[in-house]
């Protein structure tokens, strides 16, 4: 790489910052800066361009005086100012509520968990981020899929489609089989868009993969 990647790390615990820096240095040379509060991180990002920002979600050392009161607010502020930087979350929060809310609303390029994070993963994440891809650590990924499967299980139409799909040679055949709640048949276009959403939710490559994953998750038998 001709140019060193500029990375900013924002975390309230200096120990963690040190840990990340040492991990990154094991693999490659990066230009790394760090800060322990959000206001400062935001100021730094506005001053000079960074390629990547790794931030925590909750900052224990925030006081009443700090304007930006946590990772979510920091990401929002960056997105609002349209500052060009890839954002990764490194946090201890593994509750699905937090994960889902952050991914759904802020769409960070990466979501890593402090406890599981090592040099290899960190580096892999950076690679992904820099190629405009997303990387969610395994646990987060699992939780998202788990959540999606639960969501699907509450959706009668989705269950119908997943159950009927393996026995039909063509998607067209599904029209006239899948019924809505009120008893009327679903149009082909609706079925196709529903399938597309299901593939995204369950991270499936194609319909066959979708059925396999649905079976794996126990959504269908």
């Amino acid at each position, binding site marked *: 790489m001709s140019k060193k990647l500029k990375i900013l790390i924002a975390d309230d615990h200096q120990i963690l910052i040190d840990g990340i820096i040492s991990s990154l240095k094991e693999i490659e040379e990066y230009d790394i800066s760090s800060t322990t509060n959000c206001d400062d991180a935001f100021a730094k990002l506005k001053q000079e361009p960074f390629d990547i920002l790794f931030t925590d979600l909750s900052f*224990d050392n925030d006081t009443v005086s700090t304007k930006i009161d946590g990772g979510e607010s920091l990401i929002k502020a960056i997105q609002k100012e349209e500052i060009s930087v890839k954002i990764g979350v490194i946090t201890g929060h593994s509750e699905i*509520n937090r994960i889902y*809310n952050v991914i*759904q*609303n802020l769409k960070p390029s990466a979501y890593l968990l402090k406890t599981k994070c090592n040099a290899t993963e960190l580096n892999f994440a950076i690679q992904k981020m820099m190629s405009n891809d997303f990387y969610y650590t395994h646990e987060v990924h699992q939780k998202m899929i788990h*959540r999606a499967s*639960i969501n699907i299980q*509450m959706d009668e139409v989705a269950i119908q489609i997943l159950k009927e799909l393996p026995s039909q040679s063509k998607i067209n055949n599904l029209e006239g089989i899948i019924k809505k709640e009120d008893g009327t048949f679903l149009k082909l276009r609706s079925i196709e868009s529903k399938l597309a959403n299901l593939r995204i939710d369950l991270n499936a490559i194609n319909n066959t993969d979708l059925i396999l994953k649905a079976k794996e998750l126990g959504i269908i038998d």
Partner: protein
Amino acid sequence: MKVKTPIFIILFFCCAIVFSQQSTTLQKKDSIQYFLKNASGKYQLRDLEKAVDLAEKLEIDSLIMVANVKFGLQSYLKKKTYGLDIAQQNLNKLYLKSKDSFALAKVFHYKALIHLLNFKKDSSLYYYIESKNISASIKDSLEVGRRLLSMSNIQRDGKDYLGSELSAIEGLQYLEPINDIRFTGNLYNSLGLSALRTNKNKEARRYFNSFLKINQQNPNKKRKYTGFFHFYNNSALSYIREKNYDKGIELFNKALKMDSLEFKSPKLYSLALDNLSSAYYSKGELTTVLNRLKLANKIKTRINNISGLSTNHNLQFSYYSKINDSKKALYHANKALEYAKESNFTRREAIILLQLANSNLINKKAANTYLQRYININDSIIEHEKTVKNQFARIRYETGKKEKENFTLKVENDKKQLEIEKEKQQKLISFLLAIGSLLILGISFLVFKNRRKKLAFETQLEKAEAREQERQQIAKSLHDEVAGDLRMLHQQLEKTNQVEVAKKLDVVKNNVRNLSHQLSSVRFNEVNFKDQIINLISDYFSLDCKIKVSGLNEFDWTNIESPIKRTLYLTLRESLQNANKYAKATQINIELNQTKNNVYLIIKDNGVGFDFSERANGIGLKNQKERIEEINGNIEIKSSINKGTTIKIEIPIHV
């Protein structure tokens, strides 16, 4: 077949009976119609009476009416009071049953006819008036006109000429608007006759001419024919009274020359013969008189016209007196008296007696006896006529008074009715106003109450929100300040190698952080309620603990107030935590529901259950209970050992 045959036979008999019953009814109906249509001649009354009997048996009101009316009328024409009485009684029964005023009018009509046949003219007139009034009340103009015609005739006979005229004129007022021909003509004739009797001969002829005009339109040929005769005869009489004998004779001759009058109506023919003879006699041309009188006498004897015979013999008596044939004159005088008596023709009797008394055919003694007889009869006639006239006048006066009274009463009634109506309207208006104001009052009260309730509700929500913020504040300060201070202490202790104490302090620090997390809750402005609930469920869902949710997708949650959603969320979180951690449930059912006014959350698990009152860890749920009650909600927890737990929450959405 053996079984079937008797059934068929029974069926056949049943049908036969039913049909025969039907057919007898039809037969009866038909025979009534037959009798009514074809009854004529000798057996007419008998046939009509049969029709009446059959109609009574069938109990068909319309048939009873028709049959009795016809029977009564024919009875009158045949001068049978018996038949009239039956018809009258039957019609009275019909009236009492059906309250048909037409029947009642006929009852009075026939009563009048009965009295007429019994020569009780005053009673007859009374019933005519009653009948007329009833017909007038049901606006039966034809019947009213007919009754007035009869009244007019009776009154004229009773020498109440003014009354007769008045009745006739009243009759015209009823009949002319409905374009009746027959009775309108007769009324004009009656008017003419009244004028004739009071020597208003020109006026009489004017009326007769009106009668003639109308008579020409008469569609009934027979009536038209006799109408012409009466016109000639009556007009002739008017000329005779003016001593214009030639004109009178001319008209009588016209009457006599009417197409085959002698055969069509011998009675009228003989009457005209008598009248013509009388005219010649009065003129002083005696040559043709006797032949005509004899011819008339022959005819009248043949048709048994007794009163006519009395007049004829009277004329012959006059004739023979004139030519001084005293024997024949006295013979005819006696004959005339005999017939006059027989036919109740008192006036004729008086005329003959006076003529006898004044004649020079008999001695003075005999003449005196006749004169005495004349005086007696004349007195009784005058007396009778006076009473009848007076009675007519009284009846007329009373009916007039009654009508006047009725009119004033009607006017007063109308006034009162109007007042009552007005009062009613006013009452209604005030009643409506009262209702309206009550409604407005009620509505405004409800609106006011509602607003107050809404305001109270809103303040409650605001309060809940404020409390929430307070909690958040506490959570934040616990997290930031207390935990921050503890961390600093922890670092210092670590530095001074007091690891044991540091470890303990770490536990305290974690507790504080947990407490802080518990206090802090969720915001619904970033992630919607539905997603939050799914997040929550996915936290607790596993193969060992299956969670089923219903009602989440079915309802729209965006418009539900945040405090309500937060409470639902937190209660669900607490319940799931309990079911998962303590109750070790393997199946949890969550049911969300919305109605117009409330949201519901029901959480059922199959865990070990607990005794809510004894439970130390109930602190979480107690917190939730507080939150629910803050926003007017209601929580109900049912749990018993090994039977799982059911939690029901109800929170009002609106006021």
